[in-house]
């Protein structure tokens, strides 16, 4: 972001009180872990080379080509990682857990097991809970809950407006201090332009990040899928791409006026990208994310009214998908999110138009993203950048890097291992995956959070 627009009381990267289970791990005595012969992928250092990594006392102790099988201390868990990749753990910026309020769909504990199995070492939880995460007590509560039950790090985004109602803004300063990493209205767009302007203006004083789902509810109307030939054939009401582009344009203009940091949570339409590119070229403090679903699926996956691919924003055309992939590759789109949104039978087993939006994704995020690597569309280092390094930078988190001294949130993955998504084997409490029975290539072998192994493929 440009320096002119920044005026902060809290510097990004300031070490805020860190909560969550991983702090338990740091107190536990865990044997050091050493990898050698690995392909080390570390976007933060622009490193993609053969080498080793040493983890000690919950931190990265050493990294580089000089580390061989004999470089590690006695008693260390030493792994010959020939043919596999070691990278920073993923930071998923859009996770709906269901706790508190919808524990039958997903708890923080069950989501964290899915995260660990998918290589996600930090989950950023959305405030769309019941009650809404909108005050300091709730931010505190969620982090305490996570400390007791989660395998991975958990940080909440707080509500941008009270009750997610889109009118009164929340205590952005106090919530930031309590540990909220960003502010969002979750699934609900803010329709009132004046509210958005004021939120951006106020948030700027705290250098707080505003994360928005730009989708004009009036243009969505009764729409349930991408508007086009497919919606016409299925007899379903369509959502035009303009539902997104209209509100995104408004938001970006307001950023120009107000100057706060703005992140479009998940874009779906290729036509949004020109608007985004222009705003970035002007130096506005804007970033954008994309859901893994919009990168790897399109409207045709709805097939015979499959409600598991009913999503918001909707899956769009193949041209849109191609556009998003290209924008991801060249860095215009900053981050990839899973948009993990557990829904159960009662909300999904309906006629298409009546089913809820949303799909789970923590466990398949990385494997699905690797499709873009195997298809030669996006280099591996850029994928890890979008899944880990950039989210860390945007949210002011310490992870997303393999530099010595950083927390040892690390994944070891076999980027080529073939597997099939088996509904029964998923850790999520809800099974609404759009990748049921999908063929995947690439699997996490081990997930390490704060130096401790929280997932090991071999132990399955």
């Amino acid at each position: 972001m440009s320096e002119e627009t920044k005026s902060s009381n809290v510097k990004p990267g300031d070490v805020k009180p860190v909560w969550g289970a991983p702090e338990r791990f740091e107190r536990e005595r865990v044997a050091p872990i050493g990898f050698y012969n690995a392909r080390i992928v570390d976007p933060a250092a622009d490193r993609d080379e053969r080498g080793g990594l040493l983890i000690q006392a919950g931190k990265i102790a050493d990294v580089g080509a000089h580390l061989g099988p004999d470089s590690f201390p006695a008693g260390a868990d030493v792994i010959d990682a020939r043919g596999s990749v070691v990278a920073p753990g993923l930071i998923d910026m859009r996770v709906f857990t269901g706790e508190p309020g919808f524990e039958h769909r997903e708890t923080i504990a069950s989501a964290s097991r899915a995260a660990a199995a998918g290589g996600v070492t930090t989950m950023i939880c959305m405030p769309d809970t019941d009650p809404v995460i909108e005050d300091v007590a709730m931010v505190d509560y969620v982090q305490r809950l996570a400390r007791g039950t989660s395998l991975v790090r958990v940080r909440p985004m707080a509500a941008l407006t009270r009750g997610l109602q889109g009118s009164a803004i929340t205590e952005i300063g106090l919530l930031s201090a309590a540990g909220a990493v960003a502010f969002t209205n979750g699934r609900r767009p803010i329709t009132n332009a004046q509210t958005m302007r004021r939120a951006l203006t106020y948030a700027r004083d705290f250098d707080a990040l505003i994360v928005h789902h730009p989708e004009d509810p009036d243009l969505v109307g009764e729409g349930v899928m991408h508007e086009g030939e497919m919606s016409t054939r299925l007899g379903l009401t369509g959502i035009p791409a303009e539902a997104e582009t209209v509100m995104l344009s408004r938001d970006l203009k307001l950023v120009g006026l107000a100057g706060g940091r703005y992140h479009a949570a998940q874009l779906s339409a290729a036509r949004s990208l020109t608007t985004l590119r222009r705003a970035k070229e002007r130096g506005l403090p804007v970033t954008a994310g994309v859901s893994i679903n919009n990168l790897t699926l399109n409207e045709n996956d709805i097939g015979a009214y499959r409600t598991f691919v009913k999503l918001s924003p909707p899956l769009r055309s193949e041209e849109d998908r191609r556009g998003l992939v290209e924008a991801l590759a060249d860095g215009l789109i900053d981050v990839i999110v899973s948009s993990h949104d557990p829904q159960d039978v009662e909300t999904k087993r309906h006629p298409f138009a009546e089913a809820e939006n949303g799909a789970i994704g923590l466990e398949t995020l990385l494997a699905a993203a690797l499709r873009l690597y195997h298809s030669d569309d996006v280099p591996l280092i850029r994928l890890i950048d979008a899944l880990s390094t950039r989210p860390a930078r945007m949210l002011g988190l310490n992870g997303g890097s393999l530099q010595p001294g950083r927390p040892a949130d690390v994944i070891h993955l076999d980027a080529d291992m073939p597997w099939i998504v088996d509904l029964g084997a998923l850790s999520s409490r809800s099974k609404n995956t759009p990748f049921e029975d999908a063929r995947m290539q690439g699997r996490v072998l081990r997930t390490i959070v704060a130096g401790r192994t929280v997932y090991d493929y071999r132990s399955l």
Partner: protein
Amino acid sequence: MTVSVDTPSIAFPHRHLLGIDQLSPFEIEGLLDLADGFVALNRQVEKKLSTLRGRTQINLFFEASTRTQSSFELAGKRLGADVMNMSVGSSSVKKGETLLDTAVTLHAMHPDLIVVRHHSAGAVELLAKKVGCSVVNAGDGAHEHPTQALLDALTIRRHKGTLQGLVVAICGDVLHSRVARSNIGLLNAMGARVRVIAPSTLLPTAIDRLGVEVFRDIRSGIENADVVMMLRLQRERMQGALVPSVREYFHYFGLDAEKLKLAKPDALVMHPGPMNRGVEIDSDVADGPQSVIREQVEMGVAVRMAVLDALARNLPNA
């Protein structure tokens, strides 16, 4: 007393009839041939067959419909089935939960045929996956209404001898119409040339990709048409952001005697009913010599008998 009717053997390898898009032209012809025989039967005094004797047919209507439901009821009874009507008022429906719960409940009653109408596209297909019997789609949202398209085709074929090469103009609220979608599919499959006429607000995106010519004025759209199919415009859609007023709608899209003159002299006038007289169609035309609207109702019973018969032939122990 036994009644004889010409029921040719036809190829119909389907367990359900969910939409026109699952049918080949050959199968459509077969159903129409079968229905022709039932038209003759229905004009006799003794109309009852025993084809479906012992079979149970349930008409499950989540959306109120007098004519379609009674048409299916009569069709089932004339074939000898035991027919039960279940109307599930949409107000009492707690969305699709009831749909699947109802499916499970019905399944336990061992019906052989279920006829379903639902306000949501894809709902009938969803239900079909959860029951063990044959399912007929009697209309699902704005998706399909296959027996309506078949009865329209039968009506046209009996007048024109064939569907091949005919110009058929479909006029009205195509956006919300399952009748239009099923008819477009069937008519294209059978080699007719299909036009749609509607204001752009009542046309779905990319409708031309379905193989139709698009017109924004009935005068140009029905020129030299062999068949004019009018669609119902629901009253709640006549004011607001889709259509500004009844007056303006009728001016550009309503059918009256004067506009009908632009079509071929022997053009057929059709309407799936129920009609809004004076909104989309003038009474002179609706009751005039070119109108086959009442005949469509008659063909409806015959076509539904053909569909039920064809599906029952694939039932276990048939």
